[in-house]
């Protein structure tokens, strides 16, 4: 396709400084056809990330193959029956059905209680979980073993919100739950994974009692960075017996990493 009527933006070189959709040019005042199609494609992918079902059984098999020394994963579903209900009733996505809860409770080990329950949950992006959850586990699980933490069997949950981890952690009598969940997909990041850490999980927990590590994806936080931050938060949480607003995040560290210089501004002095 030739861009016969496109007015190009002469500041296209600024694109190297941001993933934002700058300097797209225009036809009249409107978006050129190519840019418009790219937007439609990205939106379609983000929509598919929300609506394509997460294949929990396949994930459990892949986990088994990678982590043969671990116990087999448990497959769970929230009380939301399908995606349409999941999207409109977040309360159902936070709850485990009684039958599943009691079955899970039998897995709890009173003699040697679990330190950590890990939950892999579809959330709002099955693509995020399918692309990143297993790879992240390959960092986190060995790191937990290195700290001699006792792990509950992995839970794999569908139609799940973050707070479903509270029910799971409580049923398993785990000291702390880590939920790896597909985040709300962005146009440029349909497969971003989040990690939510909650100490003493139980149904009454609020979001103020959690710590969150966001934006785990290609072009975002790396698995190593995510694992380092998670292990820092987890070990501190177990020491201090809390998570949430009382446990400070790493924002000072982030501030240290970001660029403060604007190379394309001439000195105004």
């Amino acid at each position, binding site marked *: 396709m030739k861009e016969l009527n496109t007015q190009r933006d002469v*500041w296209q*070189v600024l694109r190297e400084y*941001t993933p*934002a959709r700058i300097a797209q040019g225009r036809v009249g*005042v409107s*978006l050129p056809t190519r840019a418009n199609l790219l937007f439609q494609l990205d939106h379609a992918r983000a929509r598919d990330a929300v609506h394509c079902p997460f294949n929990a059984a396949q994930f459990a098999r892949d986990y088994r193959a990678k982590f043969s020394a671990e116990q087999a994963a448990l497959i769970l579903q929230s009380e939301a029956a399908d995606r349409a209900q999941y999207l409109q009733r977040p309360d159902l996505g936070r709850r485990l059905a009684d039958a599943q809860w009691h079955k899970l409770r039998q897995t709890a080990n009173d003699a040697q209680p679990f330190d950590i329950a890990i939950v892999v949950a579809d959330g709002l992006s099955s693509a995020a979980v399918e692309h990143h959850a297993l790879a992240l586990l390959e960092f986190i699980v060995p790191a937990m073993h290195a700290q001699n933490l006792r792990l509950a069997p992995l839970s794999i949950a569908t139609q799940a919100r973050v707070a479903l981890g509270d029910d799971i952690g409580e049923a398993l009598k785990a000291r702390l739950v880590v939920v790896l969940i597909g985040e709300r997909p962005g146009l440029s990041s349909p497969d971003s994974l989040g990690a939510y850490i909650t100490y003493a999980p139980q149904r009454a927990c609020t979001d103020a009692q959690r710590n969150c590590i966001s934006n785990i994806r290609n072009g975002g936080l790396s698995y190593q960075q995510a694992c380092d931050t998670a292990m820092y938060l987890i070990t501190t949480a177990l020491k201090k017996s809390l998570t949430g607003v009382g446990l400070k995040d790493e*924002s000072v560290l982030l501030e240290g990493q970001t660029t403060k210089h*604007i190379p394309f501004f001439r000195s105004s002095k």
Partner: protein
Amino acid sequence: MPFSVNLGHQHYVFGDLKTLLAKATPARSGDVLAGIAASSSEERVAAQYALADLPLRHFLNDLVIPYEDDEVTRLIIDSHDSQAFAPVSQLSVGEFRDYLLSDATTTESLRQLAPGLTPEMVAAVSKLMRVQDLILVAKKCEVVTRFRNTLGLANHFSTRLQPNHPTDDAAGIAASIVDGLLYASGDAVIGINPASDNTQTVSRLLYLLEDVITRFDIPTQSCVLTHVTTTLELINQGAPVDLVFQSITGTEAANNSFGVNLSILAEAHAAAQSLQRGTVGNNVMYFETGQGSALSANAHHGVDQQTLETRAYAVARAFSPLLVNTVVGFIGPEYLYNGKQIIRAGLEDHFCGKLLGLPMGCDICYTNHAEADQDDMDMLLTQFVAAGGNFIMGIPGADDIMLNYQTTSFHDALYIRRLLNLPPAPEFFQWLQSSNIMDSQGALFSGELPARFAQALSLKGQA
């Protein structure tokens, strides 16, 4: 006190005022989630019949959230201006709709009426109105505010330049700002949502924005949209704060969950005003709201989300804001399920805010888990600006790479300017012309960088 109505053989009873208001509300998922929506289409219209007969005076005595329980209710009642209310004090809600639509009701009469209206009256009448009613009445309202330029004049329309970046990277933010300015965006405010609430980061971004505004000599204002307490701290540290931002909602309990109350807002308002950084006015507050926020904070008292949204405007108007922005599609499909619900909510919010005397803008937006797309946004954009909306967001390519949602782009603003022939704020429009970005007819430059930008920027491959 119960309300009842007979429709044919069917007798409908509504137990109290908040039930009546909730059942009369056009369908939306948040009210269903809260368990307060009408259970059938006929019940909804029955509630609208009953509401139409309710005297406006009734809202001054029958309060949806008790006076002693909620400081927003106390603010609404204590600040009610009964003299301003006089012209409509004998009307029912249905008669009030007709009054608003009548040719005799003008821009000036609505301006005088505003302090006499309570949020609940305004929310109630909106529930009896179609989209075209919401547009036509809102279009009569004119709410003008000033800081370094004049916003909200009739037949003008403004944009917030929103140059967000996922790591608050200075070069990334500056690249989006340059893009926006060259697309004629940014007269309402250049406002960054920071990824981090870290005080150091927010401070750095405030200095960055001050540098840009000074460097290009732009008649506009800056804002970093962080918590009011962080902004207060930065004011005390001497950082260049133009506007104080805060998200607000319609109940004391929900505001508490945001970590704010009327007294902290008053403190921040006074602190920012004392800096005297405005040149043509001193409206220093920037508020954001959105239907569903009180329910999301579990602090809705069984009141429908549209009425609560309108109560948030009572909080806003106590502080003479420069900008009030209803972020209509951000909250997700559990509150506004699809394009139809988002569009109506945006127009209701604009109507209700304007009637209460607020400078309403709209973040015309959706998330990727809502049943909405660019066509829905085009419809809301066109209707919102036709209704006289003060401002919208402007971001590169409609894609917010930090907040992960889609809002209006720089191109979208140019579309609506061309369609409806609306220039930006006069001072900013003058600057665009003197900078050779836009001509007096509103046409954008083409070809080489305008001189002001060519001098200030050093772009690779260009002299």
